[in-house]
């Protein structure tokens, strides 16, 4: 309820601000809604929003799978960790923009380069989170599984993955927040479609109505994904901790 009232105040402030500044600097909510409806009717909105979401999903999945695999390997092998840790520090501190430019220069302005650039930006983050998870695995439970001759599959499914689940969830939640911002920049710099491309167009035309008509639904979708998918997933990842005292 408070959230709705708060949202109402936001719209009111926006309306008042728009009236004070004029449509050149801040279009009114109704004008943005009209632009949104127009883009929806000609299909542009669905097409670009869909493409951007697909890129978010693909880049995010790629980074999570590869990052988790390497993170687990580093967490379980101190030697490998010592060897690759400096690389990881460099990767973590390389600006997203540098990665994107390098990917486009080396790979060309194509979809693969775009996906690589998106995934590479999230990748070191997933590695670090899952490395922590692998380090936190309880050796006592592994010993128990060994004594009772658990199969390899059961050792992962029943002993290790439940311990790693909160780390996967944390990496996923942080990952989405990072990836969807990166995707826009990647599209703005090198793709002929997507929300980022549309924003570039709006920028060149100084068309704030178009900019906001694309930005707001996209932000809304990401907030919904965070609220209704990732946060519940994070909570359910450690449901068993809430049992008992």
């Amino acid at each position, binding site marked *: 309820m408070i959230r709705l009232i708060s949202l109402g105040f936001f719209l009111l402030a926006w309306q008042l601000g728009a009236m004070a500044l004029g449509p050149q600097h801040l279009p009114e909510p109704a004008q943005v809604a009209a632009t949104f409806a127009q883009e929806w009717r000609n299909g542009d909105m669905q097409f670009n929003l869909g493409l951007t979401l697909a890129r978010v999903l693909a880049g995010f999945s790629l980074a999570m799978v590869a990052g988790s695999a390497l993170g687990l390997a580093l967490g379980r092998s101190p030697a490998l960790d010592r060897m690759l840790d400096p690389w990881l520090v460099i990767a973590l501190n390389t600006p997203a923009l540098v990665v994107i430019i390098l990917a486009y220069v080396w790979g060309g302005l194509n979809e693969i380069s775009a996906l690589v650039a998106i995934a590479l930006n999230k990748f070191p983050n997933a590695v670090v989170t899952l490395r922590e998870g692998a380090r936190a695995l309880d050796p*006592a439970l592994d*010993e*128990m599984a*060994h*004594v*009772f001759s658990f199969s390899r599959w059961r050792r992962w499914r029943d002993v290790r993955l439940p311990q790693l689940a909160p780390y996967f969830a944390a990496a996923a939640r942080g990952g989405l927040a990072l990836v969807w911002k990166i995707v826009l920049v990647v599209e703005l710099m090198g793709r002929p479609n997507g929300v980022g491309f549309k924003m570039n167009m709006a920028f060149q035309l100084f068309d704030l109505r178009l900019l906001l008509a694309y930005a707001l639904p996209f932000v809304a979708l990401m907030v919904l994904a965070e609220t209704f998918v990732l946060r519940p997933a994070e909570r359910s990842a450690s449901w*068993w*901790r809430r*049992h*008992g005292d």
Partner: protein
Amino acid sequence: MAIEISGLAKNFARAGGGVREVFRDFSLTLGGGRVAALLGPSGGGKSTLLRLIAGLEMPTGGSIALPIGRIGMAFQEPRLLPWRSVADNLRLAAPGLTDEALNASLAAFELDGRGGDYPGQLSLGLARRVALARAFAVEPDLLLLDEPFASLDLGLHRRLRTLLAQRISAKRMTVLIATHDLDDALLLADEVIFLGGAPAQVKRRLTIDMPRETRDENLTKLRELAPFYPSSREDDDGNSIAS
């Protein structure tokens, strides 16, 4: 399942450098189908020996020979999977367990109706019983029990010891119990092996022929078999004086 340990050596690296020798040229033979208690002070190598037999540690030298068979083990801590129910913890260790056998395993440790509980809902005493039920559920040829009553209060300790004595008598298997408590050894084992020194050596072996059911009432007499070992005999209030 007989166990043949010969010339066993086990070293651990010390944190500050150097090595700690837990075993050097240690030999021990245990007959199959018997219940043996390893008795000795904490840090004296009992747990290490159990871990070596279970394959959780590799010997530095020498050999441990045991026939192929199922091993069941209860650790010092219950080591249950907190995200699995009590019943599933047993089923994961013993995949072939029928519902009937599962219920019997739980009932033997007075855990009737607890199958659906999660480990987080259990007291330490109950969790230990689940861990013991799990070790028995695999129908082991060799059962390893590492301080099965550690950090339980005296009442729970006795209760669980009685349950364990009944279960051990009901099945024929080789059992090895590591404990520092003389009474545990006297009440449960056919043979008590006293470990001492560093590196650990077998100081004495004591065979107990009395049937397990009559030992409780003869505990005072049994204690006289080991006057050299500090007993955990209880004072009038039922409190443990030494352990």
